[in-house]
């Protein structure tokens, strides 16, 4: 019974553990997806900024609204790359500085500034490409990490699930043994009721349930009860019979004494009193014998469930 309790407790714990694990995996998935989405959005914003810089370079009259809007969005989502490596961060800083520089230079229209802007636009384009490559690398690293994590979680899940199934199978086999024991117990109980008797009770067989200590103990206790009941019934019947015979013997002896007294033909007071005592003793002996018979009948009624 202790094993079943322990197995039950383990099943309960494993079920709770699995629930927490599922919950944690979901959280991790959501977090990683958010990060990847942010990085991908950063990529789009960087490309948008580069494209708008190129347009602004080609046409100075064009509004800076789109460029400013893309820069604003890039800065809003900057948290996605905050924890990345130094190279990416320095590329970001460099890219941002060059954009600011472009915005300042683009307002001036001299021949020297045109040379500087051309050079700057080329640099922005290069930095843009490098950043895109770095962010692609970042995405692939994140995806790999996510895959690794998911694999570990999967393995843990499979192990816990396997343990759960094993425990359930164990529990079922243990319950099956208990059911067999209960069925046998019920069968014997039904037999007792059907026969309306507790005489010659059959003990339970121990063959298939002997491995379970609790059931083994329960079987032993029941069998011990059956053996003791059988022994008590037999002993009581024998005792009553033996007592009845003994009483009959005493009765016969007293009868002989009484006959002897009758033959004495006397008027002695003491002898008369002794005769009275013998008469009373015989009366009590006969009453006791009858009481024993009643007791035997009561016992038989008890054995045969008569009320």
């Amino acid at each position: 019974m202790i094993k079943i309790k322990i197995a039950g407790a383990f099943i309960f714990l494993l079920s709770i553990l699995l629930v927490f694990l599922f919950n944690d995996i979901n959280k991790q998935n959501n977090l990683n997806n958010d990060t990847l989405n942010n990085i991908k959005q950063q990529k789009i914003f960087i490309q948008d900024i580069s494209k708008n810089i190129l347009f602004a370079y080609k046409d100075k009259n064009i509004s800076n609204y789109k460029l400013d809007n893309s820069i604003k969005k890039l800065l809003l989502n900057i948290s996605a790359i905050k924890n990345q490596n130094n190279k990416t961060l320095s590329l970001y800083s460099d890219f941002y500085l060059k954009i600011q520089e472009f915005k300042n230079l683009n307002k001036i229209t001299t021949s020297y500034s045109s040379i500087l802007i051309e050079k700057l636009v080329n640099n922005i384009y290069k930095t843009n490409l490098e950043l895109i490559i770095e962010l692609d690398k970042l995405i692939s690293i994140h995806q790999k990490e996510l895959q690794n994590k998911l694999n570990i979680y999967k393995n843990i899940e499979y192990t816990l699930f396997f343990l759960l199934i094993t425990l359930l199978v164990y529990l079922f086999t243990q319950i099956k043994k208990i059911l067999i024991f209960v069925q046998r117990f019920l069968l014997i109980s039904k037999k007792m009721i059907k026969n309306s008797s507790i005489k010659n009770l059959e003990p339970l067989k121990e063959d298939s349930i002997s491995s379970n200590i609790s059931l083994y103990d329960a079987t032993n206790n029941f069998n011990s009860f059956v053996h003791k009941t059988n022994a008590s019934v037999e002993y009581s019947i024998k005792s009553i019979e033996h007592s009845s015979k003994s009483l009959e013997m005493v009765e016969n002896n007293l009868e002989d004494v009484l006959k002897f007294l009758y033959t004495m033909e006397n008027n002695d007071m003491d002898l008369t009193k002794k005769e009275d005592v013998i008469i009373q003793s015989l009366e009590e002996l006969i009453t006791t014998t009858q009481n024993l018979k009643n007791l035997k009948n009561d016992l038989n009624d008890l054995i045969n469930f008569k009320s």
Partner: protein
Amino acid sequence: MKKTIASIDFFSSLNEEHLTLLSSISTLHTYTKNYVVHYEKKVSSNLLFLTNGLAKAYKIDKHNNEVFLYYIHKNSILSEISNIKSKVLTSFSNIEIIEDAQVLSINYQKFYDYFLSKNLLCLEFADEVIKHSQYLQDLVNREFIFDSVAKVAMMIASDLDMFNKLKRHDISLILHIQPATLSRVLTRLKRNNIIDIIQGKIKIINYTALEAIYKDL
């Protein structure tokens, strides 16, 4: 009815008016031998008087054996009074008619209201309760104090007619002894010249010696 009631000693102190009143709340029944007037633990609203005949009180033990308690002779209350304040009567034992009998049945509540509550027949009523107590004293003596010889001696001395009228088996049942013991006691009394047995009937030869057997105990 009125004449029958007047003939009972219990009601001898009542005047004509009271007798008429009592007749109005009473009925007279005739029962044959072996009729059980009431069973133990039953509740009855009627007070019963045995005006004629003979009855016996007995109980049944767990082995369905009859345990004889006492005889109830004519002009005695059949009902058992266990609680004077109660408006109903609860019987302690079974009451069976032994000889064809006439029983006067009185509505107990009305009897209580018309007579007992007005201090009429109270002494007679108390006397009947004492008589029942005496029966129970005899029963205690018979069952717990006397040995078999004393039991038989007391019955012969106190009610020889009844002893000769009953079968030996019935006597042994009444005295709660074995038939063999009764036979041994009678032999012992005859051998000591206390009684004689002529054609199965008992005749007392030495009454003093017979009385001494149970009085000396």
